[in-house]
């Protein structure tokens, strides 16, 4: 069900809400310091960047460290190519995000905030910079904006911490975890902008008010253009499809969770609840909230080959199994798409996708092979019987390699 909370107020498409309107509509965030950790914890809010980790528990584990003032990294990198919700939020409701950042800093008793924004999100960057200049609070006056390279892996949290600290947007080997030693060796909180915006409302209205909570969804392939919707957690895939405008053609498969997510056959997908915990119990993920609809003229193999090529190119080339493995997997998928099915490549896809998992410093290769394995299951028939040079849309030939 559609429920506007983060996007309530003036039409989000009309640009940033300024400080005066924001404060008039919602009032100032309460000053409750570290007591907010309890409130956030009992609200049950989970991170909206992809991992769905409980936000309160994360804050508590950082508050417990005694290694100097923590660092708060506000994650607006939004490297997932299909996701638009973070940039829409930063563009339309910058002060909600900044309220959340300030509340996080106060709860963790620090004044160190870095707001990371992907370099291609120009409207979001302009809106956040203008909003920051309007804020009188000490924590926000000292906050700096860091522009992250438009790379998928740059949004990975260890890469983000590495970038804020050193200017290098590559993942690092863990341990130590960033909770212990992140930016400048300080305990570091990396929190997605949507999660922080929810905190800004929870601080005002309480944990009980939050209820199931809402989540921002980017719907792709339904309606004329990709759209960002705010829905109650647990809303079904079908409701999102209809709210996003539906489609004129039957849908055959749905990509849940974006490029780090998984394909689900349409028959199984319509009634799935968009809720990170419920999806995890089914071996699926909501990721950063991308729901992609593949219509019946689309080819699962070719679409998968295109996404695998992208994921391979986004490896930061630090770990062999990721750099070589994802490239080989993308090549084998493309060969099936271009030259037709062959049992050797199919066997390689199955074996390599098992072998590559868990063998990188970050989770990039794991996400990529999880995505591929879902394609092999949902499009098993097509992978086994794909004709050579078959094109899903003959009128729009697309070269893959």
């Amino acid at each position, binding site marked *: 069900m559609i429920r506007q909370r983060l996007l309530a107020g003036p039409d989000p498409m009309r640009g940033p809400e300024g400080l005066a309107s924001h404060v008039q509509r919602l009032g100032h965030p309460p000053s409750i310091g570290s007591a907010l950790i309890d409130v956030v914890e009992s609200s049950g809010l989970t991170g909206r960047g992809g991992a769905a980790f409980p936000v309160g528990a994360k804050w508590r584990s950082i508050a417990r460290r005694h290694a100097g003032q923590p660092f708060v990294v506000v994650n607006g990198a939004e490297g997932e190519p299909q996701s638009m919700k973070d940039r829409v939020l930063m563009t339309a409701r910058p002060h909600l995000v900044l309220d959340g950042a300030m509340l996080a800093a106060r709860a963790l008793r620090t004044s160190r905030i870095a707001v990371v924004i992907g370099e291609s999100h120009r409207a979001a960057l302009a809106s956040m910079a203008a909003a920051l200049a309007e804020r009188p609070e000490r924590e926000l006056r000292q906050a700096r904006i860091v522009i992250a390279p438009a790379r998928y892996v740059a949004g990975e949290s260890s890469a983000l911490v590495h970038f804020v600290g050193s200017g290098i947007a590559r993942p690092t*080997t863990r341990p130590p975890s960033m909770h212990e030693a992140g930016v400048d060796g300080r305990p570091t909180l990396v929190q997605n902008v949507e999660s922080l915006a929810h905190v800004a409302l929870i601080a005002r209205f309480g944990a009980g008010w939050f209820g199931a909570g809402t989540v921002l969804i980017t719907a792709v392939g339904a309606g004329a253009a990709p759209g960002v919707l705010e829905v109650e957690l647990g809303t079904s895939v079908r409701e999102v499809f209809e709210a996003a405008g539906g489609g004129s053609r039957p849908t055959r498969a749905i990509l849940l969770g974006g490029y780090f997510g998984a394909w689900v056959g349409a028959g199984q997908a319509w009634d799935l609840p968009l809720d990170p915990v419920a999806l995890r119990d089914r071996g699926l993920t909501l990721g950063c909230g991308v729901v992609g609809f593949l219509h019946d003229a689309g080819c699962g193999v070719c679409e998968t080959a295109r996404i695998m090529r992208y994921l391979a190119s986004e490896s930061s080339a630090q*770990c*062999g*199994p990721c750099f*070589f*493995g994802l490239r080989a997997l993308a090549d084998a998928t493309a060969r099936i798409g271009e030259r037709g099915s062959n049992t050797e490549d199919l066997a390689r896809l199955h074996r390599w996708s098992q072998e590559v998992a868990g*063998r*990188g*410093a970050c989770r990039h290769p794991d996400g990529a092979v999880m995505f591929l394995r879902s394609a092999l299951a949902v499009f098993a028939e097509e992978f086994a019987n794909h004709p050579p040079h078959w094109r899903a849309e003959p009128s729009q030939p697309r070269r893959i390699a």
Partner: protein
Amino acid sequence: MSGKAHLTIDRIRCDGHGLCAELLPELVGLDDWGYPIVAPGPIPGHLLAHAQNAVTACPVLALALKRADKPAR
């Protein structure tokens, strides 16, 4: 060194020299690109000395023995 020891690999350091698989084939295999795949679980006692040799031989110090409860990745 006894009890539950695991082999861990720093995947960023590892360049796929393959000495670990040479010295400890019981626990380390190589993938199609020459990078190690470590058998899951703790190192059996009779292989601990060999595992230590493999750790010492790694030219980029990517291989390590960890007594923690975190398994090799």
